[in-house]
């Protein structure tokens, strides 16, 4: 069976700014990415890198003000999300594109029964009657491993892991083509995380859903993603397949991230953290945004604007050190 490999989701040069107290915060600075149907792209970065902003931009749920999408296009199949009306957007949110949020404790309405929360979404996007929607909701609960007779219970009666599973059920209840998962397992215990990741993978395969997984946890990325985009200060600084990133990372920041990890299989005696702190998004460094902390910075790094350089096929990197390398190779 051949799967169409055209891009299902294409983000092109997205720029998002926040204004706060007269200052401009450059949250997302020219991000481009692509996702095929049935594939998972991991968006990895630390706090404040801009990952959640990107996800919210795709769904156009950024609070405006203070956020503003300055430029960029987001193509969902063949339609441009930037040009859709609010009416059209409401049709795709929850149905074609669904989002799983980070904090299961607060993402559910505490005064509504969880069955209702699932069924409401179903009724909104399909023409099903109340009883049909309820039946489908109960099936979704079973699919995520929750007994269907818990349909009428309230969120506070569920543990964190179960709440997250309910949220996944809600997200998947209308068979979305694209799932945006924002740190879906960060707040969970590691054994529950394993259950939830297993569940997500399983459902993904069954329904051929494309997934954008946002996380700071490289381990989670290694387990679930086909491709990886590493984001720093609102820019993608390295992009590649899972093998390319985990076995052959190139960008100094990516290498720094791996070096900061206390490795499970390695008995390293000392960690090699990245010196300094993430830059203030209202006052970003000139040239390469990572250069003040980079052990491999050269003079040009502070002045030149750095483009994404293709290293080979799918592996790209935003680093001047490789510009020379690639240029040299081409000669």
């Amino acid at each position, binding site marked *: 069976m051949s799967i169409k490999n055209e891009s299902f989701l294409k983000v092109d040069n997205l720029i998002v700014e926040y204004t706060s*107290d007269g200052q401009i915060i450059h949250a997302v600075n020219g991000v481009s990415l692509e996702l095929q149907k049935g594939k998972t792209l991991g968006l990895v970065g630390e706090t404040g890198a801009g990952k959640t902003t990107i996800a919210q931009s795709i769904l156009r749920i950024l609070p405006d003000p203070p956020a503003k999408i300055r430029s960029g296009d987001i193509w969902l199949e063949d339609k441009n999300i930037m040009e859709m009306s609010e009416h059209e957007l409401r049709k795709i949110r929850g149905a074609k594109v669904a989002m799983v949020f980070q904090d299961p404790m607060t993402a559910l309405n505490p005064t509504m029964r969880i069955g209702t929360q699932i069924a409401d979404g179903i009724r909104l996007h399909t023409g099903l009657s109340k009883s049909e929607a309820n039946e489908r909701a109960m099936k979704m609960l079973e699919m995520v491993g929750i007994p269907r007779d818990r349909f009428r219970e309230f969120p506070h009666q569920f543990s964190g892991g179960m709440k997250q599973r309910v949220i996944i059920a809600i997200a998947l209840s209308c068979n979305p083509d694209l799932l945006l998962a924002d740190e879906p397992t960060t707040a969970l215990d590691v054994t529950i995380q394993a259950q939830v990741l297993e569940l997500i993978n399983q459902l993904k395969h069954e329904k051929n859903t494309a997934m954008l997984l946002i996380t700071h946890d490289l381990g989670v990325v290694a387990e679930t993603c086909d491709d990886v985009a590493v984001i720093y200060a609102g820019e993608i600084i390295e992009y590649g397949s899972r093998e390319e990133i985990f076995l052959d990372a190139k960008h100094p920041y990516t290498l720094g991230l791996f070096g900061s990890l206390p490795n499970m299989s390695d008995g390293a005696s000392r960690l*090699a*953290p990245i*010196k300094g702190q993430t830059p203030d998004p209202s006052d970003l460094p000139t040239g390469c945004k990572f250069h003040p902390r980079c052990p491999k910075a050269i003079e040009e790094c502070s002045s030149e604007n750095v483009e994404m350089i293709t290293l080979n096929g799918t592996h790209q990197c935003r680093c001047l050190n490789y510009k020379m390398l690639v240029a040299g190779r081409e000669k």
Partner: protein
Amino acid sequence: MHNESNPVAYADSNTGMPEKIKKQNQLLEVMKRLNKNKLAMAGMIIFILFVVVAILAPILTQYNYAAMDVLSKNQSPSAEHWCGTDDLGRDIFARLLYGARYSLALGVSAVVIGLIVGIILGCIAGFFGGILEEIIMRLCDIMQSIPSILLAIIISAALGNGLFNTIIALSIGRIPFTCRMVRAQFLSQRKLEYVEAAQATNSSKAALMFKQILPNAISPIIVATTMGIGGTITMAAGLSYIGLGVQSPSPEWGAMLSAAKGVMRYYPYQLLFPGLCIAIFVLALNLFGDGLRDALDPKLRN
């Protein structure tokens, strides 16, 4: 131990970084932030104006607020009597000016007394819990089950007229309110880890209460207090209006309203001026209190 041999280990360097973060003068900071809020500033200026006027009353008017001149009674505002005279011939402007003293005294004293007693009780209840908390909270419940104006009336009637008695009557009603607020703040702050950390570093109980928790609990209380002054002044006026509290010849604004109510159809100015004073003063306090709350939050500092 200085790890110059491994500078990468530490994020912070002492070189090549921007200027030192100075300890900010809290008051200056608050003032600066307050300054951005024009309405709050207006409220504060009006309040200060009232205070100044109250203090300088003898200079601002040549009349004695109690001097009766039956021949010039019930005169409309004129060059001689800027706000006219009342039915005993007393200059209303003078009475307004001196009345400011009474309102301030009543409002501020009652609130401050209620504040201090309330804070102490709230601290004890919130910090120690247990039976002590139960007793204090039930006392508050009892006091709060009576509408505050009624409570003030009962106490005022029992104690009798006069400035001092009225202050007591008004302050008692404020105690349960402040006490509850402080206790609520204590309950939420007490759970935070910095309190545990202070315990772990051998902080005494008193230090915990007053140096650690209270400064963090104080912001909403200050705001409520500022606005409380307005409410208390209104209540004081109310007491005087019905014959309790402060009475003539003392120039309390509420008493003046009361005196004027009988003749308001003929001499509306006698009602208008004291009424305006009360309204403007209370409004100014409320605006200021609002702005103060925003200005006091250190997290808004950037």
